[in-house]
């Protein structure tokens, strides 16, 4: 089943065109990694897909819900009520975690399911406890974010996103704010999610991880998709000059 479909996405900031005609589909259970140099537009693409940034042109569709449709090259957004529904389909894990510092770990995870989705309290609590156990943070339910390491905070933010029971998860450079040791623990969590066939789109600078965990790798540069395909092919045997040049530093 197709979860996400982006077609001909365009975005510019002032004079600067950051995304030029990007198309991308994600099917259920698929893990897609987006790699590329800083400023290549990969984070902007993620922000357009998660409705944090408005695209100028193109269309965006989740399952059968059209969030953005293209009218003569201009992006037209659906009504707020429909966009709210669309937001329920995905979760986003930020580079800087963005946990709510005044909430305990448990409240960070449970407030949105209770307040926004109006789910049953017992069920939400149970879901949250299960997720914390899965993240190895059962003893941290009552802790506050500042009492946790970066890696623990990022695991809480993954749990917070998963508690909404999204159809897919986006990760925006989830390990870029972490030291190598903590990076490992986050990558392990994402690997575990991949093993459970969680649908994910991951913007990352971890090349080996992208190769191992994903079904599909996209290399972006200058606001366009330069090359995409099978992870082993893209990362071990890139064909485009720009990709070869970028990956030479990793291989």
């Amino acid at each position, binding site marked *: 089943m197709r979860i996400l479909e982006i077609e001909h996405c365009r975005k510019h900031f002032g004079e600067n065109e950051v995304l030029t005609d990007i198309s991308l589909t994600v099917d259920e259970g698929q893990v897609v990694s987006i790699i590329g140099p800083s400023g290549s537009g990969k984070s902007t693409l993620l922000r357009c897909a998660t*409705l944090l940034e408005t695209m100028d042109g193109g269309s965006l569709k989740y399952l059968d819900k059209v969030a953005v449709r293209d009218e003569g090259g201009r992006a037209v957004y659906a009504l707020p009520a429909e966009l709210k529904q669309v*937001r329920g389909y995905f979760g986003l894990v930020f580079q800087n975690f*963005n946990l*709510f*510092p*005044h909430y305990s770990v448990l409240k960070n995870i449970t*407030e949105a399911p209770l*307040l*926004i989705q109006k789910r049953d309290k017992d069920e939400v609590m149970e879901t949250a406890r299960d997720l914390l156990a899965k993240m190895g943070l059962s003893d941290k339910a009552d802790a*506050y974010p500042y009492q946790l390491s970066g890696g623990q905070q990022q695991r809480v933010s993954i749990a917070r996103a998963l508690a909404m029971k999204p159809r897919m998860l986006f990760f925006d450079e989830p390990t870029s704010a972490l030291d190598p040791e903590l990076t490992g623990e986050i990558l392990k969590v994402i690997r575990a999610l991949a093993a459970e066939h969680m649908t994910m789109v991951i913007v990352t600078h971890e090349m080996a991880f992208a190769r191992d965990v994903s079904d599909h790798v996209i290399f972006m540069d200058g606001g366009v998709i330069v090359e995409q395909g099978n992870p082993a092919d893209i990362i071990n045997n890139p064909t485009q000059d720009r990709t070869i040049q970028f990956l030479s530093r990793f291989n």
Partner: protein
Amino acid sequence: MTITAMIVKMSEGLGRTCAIFFLTLLFSLPLGLLVALLRMSKNRVVSTITKAYISVLRGTPLMLQLIAVAYGPFYLFGATLLVKQKLLAIIIAFALNYAAYFAEIYRGGIESMPVGQYEAAHVLGYSKAQTFMRIILPQVVKRILPSVTNEVITLVKDTSMAFTLAYMEMFSIGKQIANSQSSFTPFVIAGAFYYIMNSVVAFAMSRCEKALGYYR
């Protein structure tokens, strides 16, 4: 007149001093938040008017504003000010003035919030109002508490300005005694009263800061 008699007499005005203090806080704290939100409005007209309001109220003396509120209606409409309305005039002037100061404090606090907090709430489906009330405002309150404490301490001392309208709060009574007795003692007593009140304020505010110290 003995010192004790002076103290007793001046204490009779403390209720009025406290009335000015608490009523001003009661109205200016919410009003200040409203002014801050209008000041940050994307509507140019609204934000410009609010900016002018803040500029005038911070840029002119509170004493002048007291006189304007108290006697302005008389000169404008020929209305007379009844004694009973003195407190009303004082509270209006104080609340409008303090709201302007609080507004800038709120604005500083709101603008210092990282955009990631808004984005995280947005992605989770929080409405704008929910994001502000549940995520942003509680954190802003913690951030601005030290600046608010400063203003609250100033407010305690500013209540003495009510003597401009001959509203018989503690300081005005003291001033009257000082005149009739040709004594400086009432001013010393007034100073002691303000110092004690502000010690209580400082203590209460530091308790608030501690209460919000459970997170960083």
